């Protein structure tokens, strides 16, 4: 499944029989826009079920890394080695629901016959009874919960989340943190969460990385002492 050059990931059949093989392995990943290397010879491993948060300034390459893992970077040049599970789900910053499909149809998009699973997933995210609503009738937080249900109904081995709560208000964001934690405990996917919020990263992740100039500039376990100051320093924010 390792794939060189081009950046396009051809997703081979899952090797789920070999459970220990289910890990995310990135070696020498480079992605360039014109002259600029957005990802510069990056190495990263994520264990099954591990929750990794990725911090960084805008332009540090965190979205590029996530899009490379999602196979969405076919128009970017680069090379490197990418091992990702077959079942990858993506949660975008916008909920990205099809406005002309009812909520339930959005959840089971591309999964014909999975309506019952879809209903259960909606119940899990606390939206039981809203199956037949139009996405436009939901609040921003509710729409993002539908997006979570759409991701989880596919039972992903890797969940990629690109600032999923960035557009939500602070209170809703806290609720969504609790929900995401609960869902990850229940489904146990490996998670790569891209965020610019240090506290969100510490609250949710097992391991926090700081990406700078296409390389990993800092790496901390979230239970380490003084992690917040360390991360902020790595991001160039000095605590007063």
């Amino acid at each position, binding site marked *: 499944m390792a794939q060189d050059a081009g950046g396009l990931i051809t997703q081979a059949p899952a090797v789920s029989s070999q459970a220990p093989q289910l890990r995310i392995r990135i070696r020498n990943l480079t992605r360039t826009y014109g002259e600029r290397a957005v990802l510069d010879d990056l190495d990263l491993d994520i264990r099954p079920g591990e929750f990794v948060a990725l911090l960084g300034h805008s332009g540090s390459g965190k979205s590029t890394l996530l899009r490379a893992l999602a196979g*969405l970077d076919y128009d970017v040049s680069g090379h490197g080695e990418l091992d990702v599970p077959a079942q*990858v789900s993506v949660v975008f910053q916008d909920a*990205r629901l099809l*406005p*002309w*499909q009812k909520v339930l149809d959005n959840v089971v998009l*591309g999964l014909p016959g999975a309506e019952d699973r879809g209903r259960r997933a909606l119940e899990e995210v606390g939206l039981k009874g809203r199956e037949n609503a139009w996405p436009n009738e939901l609040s921003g937080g509710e729409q993002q919960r539908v997006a979570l249900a759409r991701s989880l109904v596919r039972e992903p081995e890797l969940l990629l989340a690109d600032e999923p709560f960035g557009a939500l208000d602070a209170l809703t964001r806290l609720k969504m943190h609790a929900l995401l934690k609960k869902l990850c405990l229940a489904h146990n996917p490996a998670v790569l969460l891209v965020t610019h919020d240090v506290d969100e990263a510490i609250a949710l992740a097992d391991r926090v990385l700081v990406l700078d100039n296409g390389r990993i500039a800092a790496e901390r376990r979230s239970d380490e002492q003084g992690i917040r100051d360390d991360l902020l320093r790595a991001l160039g924010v000095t605590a007063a």
Partner: protein
Amino acid sequence: MTTLQESAAAAASALSPAGPPLPAPVRRARRGTLRPGAPIKFGFLIGPGLILAAWVIGSAAGLIDPRFLSAPWQVVATTVELIESGRLQQNLLASVQRVALGLGFGVPIGVALAVVSGLSRVGEALIDGPIQLKRSIPSLALLPLLILWLGIGEGMKVTIIALGVMIPIYIHTHNGLRSIDSRYIELAETVSLSKVQFIRTVVLPGALPGFLLGMRFAVTISWLFLVVAELINSTAGIGYMMDLARTYGQTDIILVGLVLYGLLGLFSDAAVRLVERKALSWRKTLAD
């Protein structure tokens, strides 16, 4: 201290009737002035109704010469006559059949061409050019050729309608399809939709607003081309009935035909708009 006393005095003078008048409270108008307002029931009938009223008044006052324009009641009487003799139904049926066939061929062909040309570069290269070319040739100019190829029978009449209908369907469906947000395409890729699923759940619903707009043009155009087609050597149809009436100088029958064309166009447009409202109920727009 002094400021306090002063403001107290000011307050007292404001309360006393002799004091300066208080500014009148501003009543804030409710927002919503940028929207067109609440929908008017049967609003689409008001405009045509006014024209009808002018015609009635003009005829009754003797301002309109009946040799040029028969009075409305004369037209009504003629309509009753035509219905009683069965001529109207027979001709209407022939016309409706032609339009239905023309739409039946033209709409699916237009949609299919739009989807192929919208989703593949090869399709676009093959299809878009000829369509734009056809669009810039007046359809009436195609008539001589079509008559040579297809004769003057039903085939030619249905073809000219289908060709006319195809263009707005193609243009607007293609446009609707091309303006689908690329974020939805990215989403379709991440959930690994197949090409068929992608067309069914993203492309067609996304292009539906465009298609329905094209449909509104298409139904109007279909009646337009019907007239042209029927004036050429028909033996039935509203156009034939009118052409015959012209020979005998029967303006009332011509008017019956005109009113019929108008009503048919109006109601088919209203029908499409009804479908539009039902099919696009997920949208929140300026009109809601």
